[in-house]
């Protein structure tokens, strides 16, 4: 028994790797997912804020993440964009992460394709047609985090004279029929947008708070990886952020809120399995540890 327990404590970590792999692989191969999620208060705050905006209002969506965090952050951005498109909120999207443009283009492209024809959403609501330039604009990436956030407080054209495709932004307040980017006729700086939603796996939301909120008092909502969640909590409490969407759980909550279960919901089943597996490992490991230590203290050993 001692031998078995001791061997368990010193188990080769490859066995743990294998179990984790199976825990994720099996539900995914079978294609099962959780059916519902239980939204947390900090997610509901973001949802409510956007939901209370009027049709035609503008927000800045800053997708400051790289491909490495796609699985966690893309479902979130997708759900947010769907909410905006369904409600008619116009989105100025940009990225402050050097590896961001590829990610954003793929995502925006996917959603614009989804919203290219009038139709019905899976929950039965009407799916309107949304177009690039009219309802969403992607400005691309510019080097320098703080400087671009500050520039947005003065004039978006300081940092982004063109959109990602190289189309010149129209002058603020100019005739929207004369340009392919009518949305940008209404945007000069933070005064024209209702809030900034930054989605990131990095410290960039802190920059948004320090420069966007602190200097220009624009409201900031954050979508972050689960690991940054605890880090941003102080900002939530001091009122520097209006809400937080943490990780895949947050994304699943958001999918629940907009009534459109998607990839985050599917992912929550393997999540639950592996979480419980790790918890089980820790508990068993500690039990074994205490038994072994007790035997060793008694001077026992091999038996």
């Amino acid at each position, binding site marked *: 028994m001692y031998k078995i327990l001791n061997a368990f404590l010193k188990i080769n970590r490859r066995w743990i790797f294998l179990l984790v792999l199976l825990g994720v692989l099996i539900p995914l191969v079978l294609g099962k997912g959780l059916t519902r999620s239980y939204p947390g208060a900090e997610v509901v705050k973001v949802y409510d804020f956007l939901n209370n905006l009027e049709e035609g209002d503008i927000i800045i969506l800053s997708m400051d993440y790289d491909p490495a965090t796609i699985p966690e952050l893309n479902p979130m951005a997708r759900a947010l964009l769907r909410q905006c498109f369904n409600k008619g909120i116009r989105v100025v999207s940009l990225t402050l992460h050097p590896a961001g443009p590829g990610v954003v283009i793929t995502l925006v492209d996917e959603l614009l394709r989804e919203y290219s024809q009038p139709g019905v959403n899976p929950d039965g609501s009407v799916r309107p047609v949304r177009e690039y330039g009219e309802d969403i604009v992607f400005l691309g990436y510019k080097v320098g985090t703080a400087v671009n956030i500050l520039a947005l407080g003065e004039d978006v054209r300081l940092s982004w004279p063109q959109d990602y495709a190289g189309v010149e932004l129209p002058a603020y307040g100019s005739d929207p029929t004369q340009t392919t980017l009518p949305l940008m006729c209404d945007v000069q700086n933070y005064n024209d947008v209702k809030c900034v939603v930054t989605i990131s796996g990095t410290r960039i939301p802190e920059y948004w708070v320090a420069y966007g909120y602190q200097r220009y008092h624009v409201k900031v909502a954050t979508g972050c990886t*689960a690991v940054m969640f605890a880090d941003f909590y102080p900002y939530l409490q001091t009122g520097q952020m209006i809400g937080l969407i943490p990780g895949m759980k947050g994304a699943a909550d958001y999918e629940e809120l907009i009534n459109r279960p998607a990839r985050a919901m599917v992912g929550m089943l393997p999540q639950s399995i592996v979480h419980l597996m790790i918890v089980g490992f820790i508990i068993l490991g500690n039990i074994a540890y205490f038994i072994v230590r007790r035997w060793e203290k008694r001077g026992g050993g091999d038996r």
Partner: protein
Amino acid sequence: MKNKWLMFLMGLGMAVVVGFLSHFMFYTTGEDQTLQMHTWLGLTVAAILTLFIYTFLYKDNPLYKFAEHLLVGTSAGYYLVVYYHNSVKPNMIDQIVAGFQQIGQMRAEGTFNFVDGILTNAGIWAIVPGIIGFLILFRLSRKLGWLARYSFGFYIGTAMGMYIPVGFQASIVEQIRGTIVHSAAAEPTPVFNLVYFGEFFSHPTWGGFVQAISGPLIIVGIFCTLIYFFFSKEHTGVFGAFGKVGIWFLMVGFGASFGATVMARISLLIGRMDFLINDWFKGLILPLFGGG
């Protein structure tokens, strides 16, 4: 080296293969939105490289080494290219060219003067970062390497100067305020709120108790943590005991962070598995054999 030429040829071959792949094999979907052979190859290469990296979990092996070195090679130059196109070219080269054109024009028109032509000419100023940057390249010289320090001095000094007030703003002043009041609500409410105690004593409930002690607990936690970070006093006696409590708060905080992170990490694995199973295997490989 005997096989120097072999190496050279292999290098050339690799370069041609990578370059060829980058040009043709990954070219995206066609106009009719159907999946092209190119995308098929691109995703397959991605999937194979993904599997190569996972072999590291078993042990280090040539497959992993290959993937690792390919990743380092393709990513090392990435930011040089991105910075060049996004920053150096528009903010330096283009501006300098425009600046000199302006001077030329002014001279041709006979309106050239020092203030307009040089001092307030953005193009001339754009030379400065070029000079500072160029000084760094002197690191290649054994004798003049110290010139690079001028650039470091500029860079570091500026960064430190920017940090100090912002550091006070975000890490100190705002944190002090956050310790005194919860300011998320429109009307800031005190962290140490006697109202909650009043409520608890008039209607004692479990939730009321937690609500009442949460504020004071935060305050105690912050103070004890700060005491733990005291360097110039020995951590003994009562002072040491507070420091110990500070460590406990740190440990609970770390544990909570750890627990909250597990989800993020598994999300990543799910993302990769999703790619391998759905996008690649079910989407691309099975149809080849008439499945999917």
